[in-house]
């Protein structure tokens, strides 16, 4: 909902036609289009513009993510990382992108061509779809999905199918190993991921990312769920471990294990198709970190957002910008943490990954749910009188 824009006839009609959830672009467009366009045209245009924005966000996140990864790893390892292209190498990802565009696009002989070509597209496409649930700001989002978190988890799970397709179709045994590991690993870790997310969900009472975030604006914007009860922190640790496995990040990077499976399911890919997998990885990391920020660390809520709302009024453009910046910062803080873990720890073995997922993370997350539930119902009530 864009409260700071004066309502227009078409916008009002669209707002009335859409039940509850609304696309900010669809609200914004009637103001920008000349005349009084038909409602369907506004929807189609809004969809196209939204897709463009989603693509741009994924691309920018991936570009910045690769640069950040190189810088973080470089500084952890007593080196500088990229320094040549632009100031501290900030143009390096662009140079890499150009290089990847110009590279020969190989399809290995004996591969299943159709699957081989579809796989990277499917992987990236599902991530674009999941991206639509990313709340950019309280007043600006692609889609205000009531079951937002369900949608994200579901869509990012589909990327696994793309990875399995890639490994299967490559006609390489190493790739097949990577794909099988991905399948086993994601199945094992989807469970604790979902259960760990139940803890903040129970507290928030909503699946909607924006609404969850609104529940955490309290004193100075610091009424975050992580401080809410003693089971939140363990739940976050479980969630974080699970998203490391979900996004194939070290120490759970078994599907691509550079030193074991060469590059796993990506071994046979080159050029832009390979870049698609890479973009997916960074965008998925970012998206999951956003989810973590929204469900554990206050989402838009921060002292900055609180101050912006106090001074310039809730729903104003400054408040929206502050909220968007806050969430972006929290998201990239999570991404940084994931990189830090990657460049510090050795990799675990596949049987250890499975043991950890099934034997430890799943029961522990169930325990967290039970504990948080009891706490919320019994202890918190007693406390508050």
């Amino acid at each position, binding site marked *: 909902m864009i409260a700071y824009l004066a309502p227009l006839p078409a916008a009002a009609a669209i707002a009335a036609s859409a039940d509850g959830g609304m696309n900010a672009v669809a609200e914004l467009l009637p103001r920008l289009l000349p005349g009084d366009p038909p409602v369907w045209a506004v929807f189609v245009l809004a969809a196209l513009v939204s897709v463009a924005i989603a693509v741009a966000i994924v691309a920018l996140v991936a570009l910045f993510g690769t640069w950040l990864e190189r810088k973080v*790893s470089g500084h*952890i*390892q*007593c*080196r500088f990382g990229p320094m040549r292209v632009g100031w501290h190498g900030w143009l390096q990802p662009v140079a890499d992108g150009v290089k990847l565009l110009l590279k020969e696009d190989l399809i290995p002989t*004996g*591969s*299943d061509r159709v699957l081989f070509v579809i796989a990277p597209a499917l992987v990236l496409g599902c991530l674009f779809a999941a991206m639509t649930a990313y709340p950019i700001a309280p007043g600006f989002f692609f889609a205000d999905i009531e079951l937002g978190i369900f949608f994200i988890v579901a869509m990012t799970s589909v990327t696994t199918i793309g990875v399995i397709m890639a490994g299967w179709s490559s*006609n*390489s*045994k*190493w790739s*097949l*190993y990577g794909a*099988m590991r991905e399948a086993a690993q994601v199945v094992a870790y989807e469970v604790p991921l979902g259960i760990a997310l139940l803890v903040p969900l129970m507290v928030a009472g909503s699946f909607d990312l924006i609404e969850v975030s609104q529940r955490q604006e309290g004193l100075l914007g610091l009424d975050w769920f992580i401080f809410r009860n003693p089971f939140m922190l363990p739940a976050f640790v479980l969630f974080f471990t699970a998203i490391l496995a979900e996004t194939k990040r*070290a*120490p759970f*990077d*078994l599907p691509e*294990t*550079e*030193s*074991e499976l*060469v590059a796993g399911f990506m071994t046979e890919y080159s050029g832009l198709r390979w870049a698609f997998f890479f973009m997916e990885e960074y965008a998925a990391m970012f998206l999951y970190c956003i989810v973590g920020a929204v469900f554990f660390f206050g989402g838009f809520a921060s002292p900055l957002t609180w101050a912006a709302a106090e001074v310039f009024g809730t729903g104003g453009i400054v408040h929206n910008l502050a909220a968007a910046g806050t969430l972006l910062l929290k998201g990239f803080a999570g991404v940084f943490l994931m990189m830090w873990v990657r*460049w*510090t*720890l*050795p*990799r*675990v*073995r*596949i*049987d*250890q990954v499975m043991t950890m997922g099934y034997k430890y993370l799943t029961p522990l997350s169930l325990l967290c749910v039970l504990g948080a539930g009891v706490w919320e119902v019994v202890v918190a009530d007693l406390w508050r009188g």
Partner: protein
Amino acid sequence: MSILDLQKPVSRIAEERRLPGGERELTVDVRTQDVEINMGPQHPATHGVMKVLLRADGEVCTGAQPHLGFLHRCAEKIGEKLEWLQFLPYTDRYDYLAAMNNNHGYSLAVEKVLGIEVPRRAQMLRTICVELNRIGSHLIAFGTYGLDLGAFTPFLYMFREREWMMALFEKICGARLTYSYLRIGGVYNDAPPGWLSELERFCDVFDAKWVEYRDLLMLNKIFVQRTANVGIVPPAMALDFGLTGPLLRGSGVDFDLRRDLPYELYGEIARDGAFTVPFGTGEKGTVGDCWDRTYVRVMEMREAVKIVRWCLDHIAPGPIIADLPKVLKMPPGQAYVGIENPRGELGHFVISDGGRVPVRVRVRGPSFTNVAVLEAILPGSFIADVIAILGSIDVVMGETDR
């Protein structure tokens, strides 16, 4: 052709029973075939151009066969065609991570045939360089082992110290990898001014860093989980396969050529008690597992620093090379000298008929012998463990293939 066509499962009906009522009950013997998979010669974990032909049932390796020879450069044959001194640079190239040690082995063998005495300062400089190179070699072995197990960062930390070590070598002999510094009869160059004090500084810094590396990687929980109880070589098996060096000591056999068959200064150093020989005790798992082997290497680095310090305490000015003619006049004879290379016993067997060129230069490479144990310990381990075991064997393909 896809992977599936390559391995058609052969299934057959094992038993057929007719049930009352006309139904049939079939017992089908479903067979699946193991995957045969080439690890290498272009694989990041084989440290060079080794190929291991693996047979795998899913994630479990059921058979393995190392294939060597991709880097064969006729080193021994070249030795029969060149003059005695001219072969020395070729010794650098077989175990390129421990070139000083190779020079040492060859020089000692030739000196034994010649029957000459090496000046004491030269012996000191030799011992210093050989032990420094041992540190460098073990740093690579340990660092790349971390890399194999997915820990990228310690590898670069270790290159930082190795870089300093190479800078020290560059100062004393001008080369960074293939030194040819240890010559027949002594060493090529005296230590430049300030070199020995810089070496002392290196020892101090390295001791501090050593603790850091041990805590960062060796005692890391995930690292221990990945290496303990993996790739166990029992002491008896180690002896059967003729393993030497850290592999043998990792299996709990307390044997080190430097102490038990001392050459050059090592007898004196051992008598002084300047160094001890670490061996595997099964601290984190079983005796002879990957962790033990790696820990032996880590401990050996510290022992090497102790030996360098002993040399720094005892070094005195003097000549650095024996007085020898440019073209060696070798008496007829033969000699075998085995030295403790970072990877094990590096033996040189040289035969002279009194001519300008050797009749035979036979090299007994430790990696070549050590790699044989793979076939025995790989089956039954996970694919991921195959990498852990390969890394813990620490082969240098230049030396297995020569």
